[in-house]
């Protein structure tokens, strides 16, 4: 089978879904089936992977002039991202089961899947950038059309902010091409660059926005809050991961010498993001914004782990990325659901939801506990391994990040107290909290994953560790 289809078929399929499926009801089945197909494909790619290096998947348009050839190659790191993305896409489809204007919605979702697969699969920098930018288009429409009150502002801010950041990336890629003569990232590593420092900084700024790190994070609270809940899941679970993936792939693995020199910037911004976003979450009374800040805070943790430039650090970063995707998603989904039902975003209007919707509340509490890093959840394993790898690389002082755990516990527990427990508010007592079965099923899967890999993380670590074993030669702490 030609793997180019994984990238280009979605672009056509999305057109088909938009124009042909007049009956809403087909669109979601088509996209569900397609995403399951993507999952099978990604897993089968993973099975065939060699132990080290890249596996060639296909090539399209060989153009020597501008090195404009789409080359699809994957290694373990990108295949893990592919599997994660396809699982999240399936769960997002399930969570969007009762969305309005389904043919348009699911056609955008399918388009997004093609773009994001392109991001993880292409090793040609120019095509990587093309797909990187293409992910913005469906996101712009998904936030803008299905979002809540401030959707227009949020969608345009998101589009503009991340697009401006991408320009830094594009300039860096152009400089790489000028200095190495190729857009192929597997070849660039071996070439001698003239201005590696400038390139490193351009890439760093570009990817820091997507990740996002303080002070480049301001697009995120708006976009996450205004987006419909399933799209917030995509933003947090896939788009932020894309930023972190690119940070590992380009800023660390492609330019290791500069990374060693400037890793402290990543560390500093990571710590600031972690604490700043944590305190912002503590202060926030807007339920979904609280979750959004907690999301930034976790990405700060990932940044710290990446900055250690060590085998342990990168593994724990990848674990935390996956953990974050599964923990933050149910929080977004349930927060969105509460808003949909009660009509309010604010915690003061909620309270005592446990009495009306015990199962849903239980999942919210569980995911919340995962976010604060309670043992037996993925959150705990992620935070602990990051702490350990950080201590190994930087010494005991890195223990300050435990502070964030305290802040995290405070805002999560306080939120639970105000939203789930406590006295039932008037709004809640008048609301009917019945959720469709399909959407509830998606939540259960999230919970299941958090629990399983929280109790038995080795299973996941075995996969993750292999991803970085080929980069052991990174030098330094490795």
């Amino acid at each position, binding site marked *: 089978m030609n793997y180019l289809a994984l990238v280009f078929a979605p672009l056509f399929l999305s057109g088909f879904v938009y124009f042909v499926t007049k009956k809403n009801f087909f669109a979601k089945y088509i996209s569900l089936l397609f995403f399951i197909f993507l999952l099978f494909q990604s897993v089968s790619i993973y099975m065939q992977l060699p132990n080290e290096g890249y596996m060639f998947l296909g090539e399209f348009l060989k153009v020597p002039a501008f090195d404009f050839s789409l080359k699809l190659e994957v290694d373990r790191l990108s295949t893990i991202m592919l599997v994660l993305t396809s699982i999240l896409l399936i769960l997002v489809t399930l969570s969007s089961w009762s969305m309005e204007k389904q043919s348009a919605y699911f056609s955008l979702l399918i388009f997004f899947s093609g773009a994001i697969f392109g991001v993880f699969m292409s090793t040609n920098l120019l095509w990587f950038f*093309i797909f990187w930018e*293409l992910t913005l288009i469906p996101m712009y429409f998904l936030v803008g059309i299905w979002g809540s009150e401030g959707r227009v502002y949020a*969608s345009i801010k998101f589009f503009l902010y991340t697009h401006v950041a991408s320009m830094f990336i594009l300039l860096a890629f152009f400089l790489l091409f000028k200095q190495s003569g190729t857009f192929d990232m597997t070849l660039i590593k071996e070439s001698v660059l003239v201005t590696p420092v400038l390139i490193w900084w351009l890439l760093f700024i570009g990817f820091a926005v997507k990740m996002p790190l303080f002070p480049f994070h301001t697009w995120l609270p708006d976009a996450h809050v205004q987006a419909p809940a399933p799209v917030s899941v995509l933003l947090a679970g896939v788009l932020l991961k894309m930023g972190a993936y690119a940070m590992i792939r380009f800023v660390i693995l492609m330019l290791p010498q500069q990374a060693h020199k400037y890793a402290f910037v990543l560390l500093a911004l990571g710590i600031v993001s972690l604490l700043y976003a944590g305190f912002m979450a503590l202060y926030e009374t807007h339920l979904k914004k609280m979750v959004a800040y907690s999301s930034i805070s976790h990405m700060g943790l990932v940044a710290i782990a990446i900055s250690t430039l060590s085998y342990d650090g990168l593994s724990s970063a990848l674990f935390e990325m996956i953990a974050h995707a599964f923990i933050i998603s149910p929080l977004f989904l349930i927060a969105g659901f509460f808003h949909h039902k009660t009509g309010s975003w604010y915690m003061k209007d909620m309270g005592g939801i446990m009495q009306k919707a015990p199962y849903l509340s239980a999942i919210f509490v569980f995911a919340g506990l995962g976010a604060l890093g309670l043992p037996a959840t993925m959150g705990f394993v992620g935070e602990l391994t990051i702490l350990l790898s950080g201590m190994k690389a930087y010494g005991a002082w890195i223990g300050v990040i435990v502070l964030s755990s305290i802040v995290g516990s405070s805002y999560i527990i306080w939120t639970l107290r105000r939203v789930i427990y406590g006295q039932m508010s008037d709004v809640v007592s008048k609301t009917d909290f019945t959720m469709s079965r399909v959407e509830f099923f998606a939540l259960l899967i999230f919970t299941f994953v958090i629990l399983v890999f929280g109790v038995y993380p080795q299973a996941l670590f075995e996969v993750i560790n292999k991803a970085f074993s080929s980069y052991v030669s990174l030098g330094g702490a490795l």
Partner: protein
Amino acid sequence: MSAFSILFVMSLFSFALHNLKILKRLSILVFGISFGLTLNHYQIPLMGFETSSSVELFEMVLFVVLGATVLSLDEHIAITQTLFLATASVLILESFTLVSFVISFEALSIISFVLVSYMKNDKEASGAIGMFISGSFATAIIMLGVAFYLLDGHSLTQKISVNVDGFGMLGLWIVLVGLFYKLTIVPMHSWALDSYAKVRPAYAGILSGIVKTVVFLATFKMFAPFIDANFAISSSILVTLALITMTLGNFLAIFTKKVEQILSYSSIAHAGYMLLAFVSVKSSYAQSGLLYMAIAYIFMQTSVFLLLDKLSNGKGNLYLEDLKGLAQKDKLSALFLTIQLFSLAGIPLLAGFMGKAVLVYAVVDANFIFVALFTLLNSALSVGYYAWIVKHFYFDTKNNEEKVVTVSKPIYVSQTIFLVGTLYFGMFAFNVFGFSF
């Protein structure tokens, strides 16, 4: 020159054809034949004119675009002028002596004046007059420049001499300034703001999309060696002009509510991007960059204006509010507009992105890294207003006031041709590299 002859004969003959339907079909046929002739490199030699691979490629694109344009035009005079336009474009693109260049440039200008002179109301009249006055002004300046150039003992019937100084140099710079009027380079841009927004949108599309691009390519072909030889003096002037032009265009566009006006500002911004080809003339990518940008621009700009013309029933004067909920009313038109606007904004997989990317790479290649960064940021900023237009189609609900009318089938066909062009040159980029002037 073979395409020239058949186009010229058809242009003259078109006055005698009163049946609009037959004229349309015949024009499209003639464009098709010209395309075929150019594709097969069929040449009739003529003194003062020569062709090259990239000129041929651009001419073919031009014939396709003009064919698609004719499909959505519905006035006799407009179709006639389109034929004349093609004739003059072939002339100016293939001319290599100063005299043939200036004469074909004047022919092109006069055709544009005739095109806009078919006006229906005061608004269109004021746009046309503004354009006419500034055009005559530009002509006068160009003549002055040519006079200075001759004064220094250079010949009109040869290629521009590269080693010039004194009056020769001054003369060529004055000619360039005159041309910059047509190319809407700031500060010679102000007529365009008025004219593009006031004349009928279809004509604005032809003027800003087709005529400007043709003149740009021809100017580059003519003056690139001169700029290259005198790079020390010209680079700083050109960098300044390019940056000011794109920034002003983009900034003004953000604060405008009238759609045609936004597009005319964006057209000025694009002139700024294209001027970068002169800045990066030392790079081997400058030629393909400009060629790419020109091809992309001719597709997207013409398409957007033509569709707006049809949506407003030829009246123009569309405000952003009028386009609210367009996607509910007309799914296809909204999609066409969205894709072309995103292409203008430089979103990947569309020709606009590749055009900008190659052009900016040429700038990087010529070691103007901060100019490149500034350009990229400018282009990113422009997404703000393009996305803002698109927002009205999809995010808002239908407007009760019915200013926007439904579009007929031939328009969809013509728009599909534009769309295919935008997508084709966005993905199959290699067609443009390796062509030279």
